[in-house]
């Protein structure tokens, strides 16, 4: 294999014995479209830009899937994305951060990777604060989502 293929040996991206959950999830009793609106409002209130809402369900129902309500929301703060992609290129494939939202029965589920999982990729202690703040924002947005009526 004469390529420059190289896997970056970074710190543990997902440490096996992490104390915090690697994934953060929430269930809302709201219908998909109401829950989606709520999510976007809460994200903006927390100071985040919703850059794109990507459908990933096109063709799913045609294949017998039970729902066609599945979106991935690209979200972040512009200056932080610029800063991180510049300083930590190996983090680029994970940016911007994404939140999955999908219907399950009458409920709606939210899933995202815990930002602290990314913090393992940065070596500068002061940059970890970015991820700590992300994490606490995610918990807060997900709490809003869970409680919305």
């Amino acid at each position, binding site marked *: 294999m004469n390529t420059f293929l190289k896997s970056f040996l970074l710190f543990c*991206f997902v440490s096996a014995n992490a104390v915090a959950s690697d*994934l953060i999830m929430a269930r809302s009793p709201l219908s998909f479209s109401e829950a989606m609106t709520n999510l976007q409002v809460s994200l903006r209130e927390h100071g985040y830009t919703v850059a794109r809402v990507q459908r*990933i369900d096109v063709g*799913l129902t045609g294949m017998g899937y039970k729902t066609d309500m599945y979106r991935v929301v690209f979200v*972040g703060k512009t200056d932080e994305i610029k800063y991180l992609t510049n300083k930590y290129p190996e*983090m680029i*494939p994970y940016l911007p951060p*994404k939140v999955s939202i999908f219907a*399950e029965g009458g409920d709606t*589920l939210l899933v995202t990777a815990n930002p602290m999982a990314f913090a393992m990729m940065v070596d500068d202690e002061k940059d970890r604060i970015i991820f700590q703040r992300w994490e606490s924002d995610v918990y807060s947005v997900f709490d809003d989502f869970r409680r919305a009526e």
Partner: protein
Amino acid sequence: MIKFTVLFFLLIVSGIANAAPDGKALFDKHCSACHGSEGKGGVGVPLSLPSFINSVSNEYLNRTIRVGRPGRIMPAFPQLSDAQVKAIVGHVRSWTDMPMVKFDSTPVTGDKKNGKELFLKRCAQCHGEDGKGGKGTGVTFSRKRDLPIIAPALNNSGFLASASDMMIKNTLIHGRDGTPMVSLLKAGLKEKDINDVVAYVRSFQKLETTSISDEKNGAAIIVESPYSLEETVENLKQAIENQNFKLIRTDYLEHGFVDEGKENKKQVVLHFCNFNFLFEALSIDPRVGMFLPCRVTVVEHEGKVQMMTINPMRLSKLFNNDGLNDACKAMTETYESILEDASL
């Protein structure tokens, strides 16, 4: 007056300190996403069925919460305090009026060889050979809700650490009404045979499933391109097509974050997809949509052009789902060949 204020303050403070954690709120926060707000099941198995809740001890629930089910989606919750775990168990317990069952810790002894034969005949069709569990878990959203619950993994270190022999035996004797798990007694097995099966299930303890080791895998797959950024993007488009994937769109990483035209033109993302692959991945674990469709980012940084993707081998760990291992391996190979192809 001051005295009153102090007293009042003390009352409030002691009130906060003594307040028992709210089991329902904790369940909503940590469990309902998978098990449903009323425990009716989802990605996780139902917890509110009388046949389940009336046949397990608090100790079993307690340990299950602490150790989770490694590789089978259910996370471990080491971060919760004892009082919080107790409150969650209390909430689950509130779904039944029946008194809690207690099992003594006497080990069940039996003939493992006969147990294995019976297991292969009577259990493997649902729980899998070696007890690795059914494909998928719970009653996931990709399936009809009235389809049967998927059989849990029995060779799972989390299950074996939580269940006592007597509990397993009791489950085999009574089955779980309302689930595909039938009573072996009713199916005509003798108690001796049941003991043999329990002994066999217990022997899984040493088998421990091996999951993909972590150390060799970085967080990203990165390949340098000898071409310019524009050429690399064109090469990738061709490589994606060669691998039978469909290009969905090409845009800048900063798309949507800054005004159109102001994006950093040195960070290009190609989004592509293959419906069979997407469908298969989502039916194994609906949560992986976050990393789909497939994406390659091309970056020009300090004069170097690089192509990068996430490393899918990390995902089964992130999602605590060994069922994703094969799909992740396939995805890794696809990414590697696309990047290699585009850099030739």
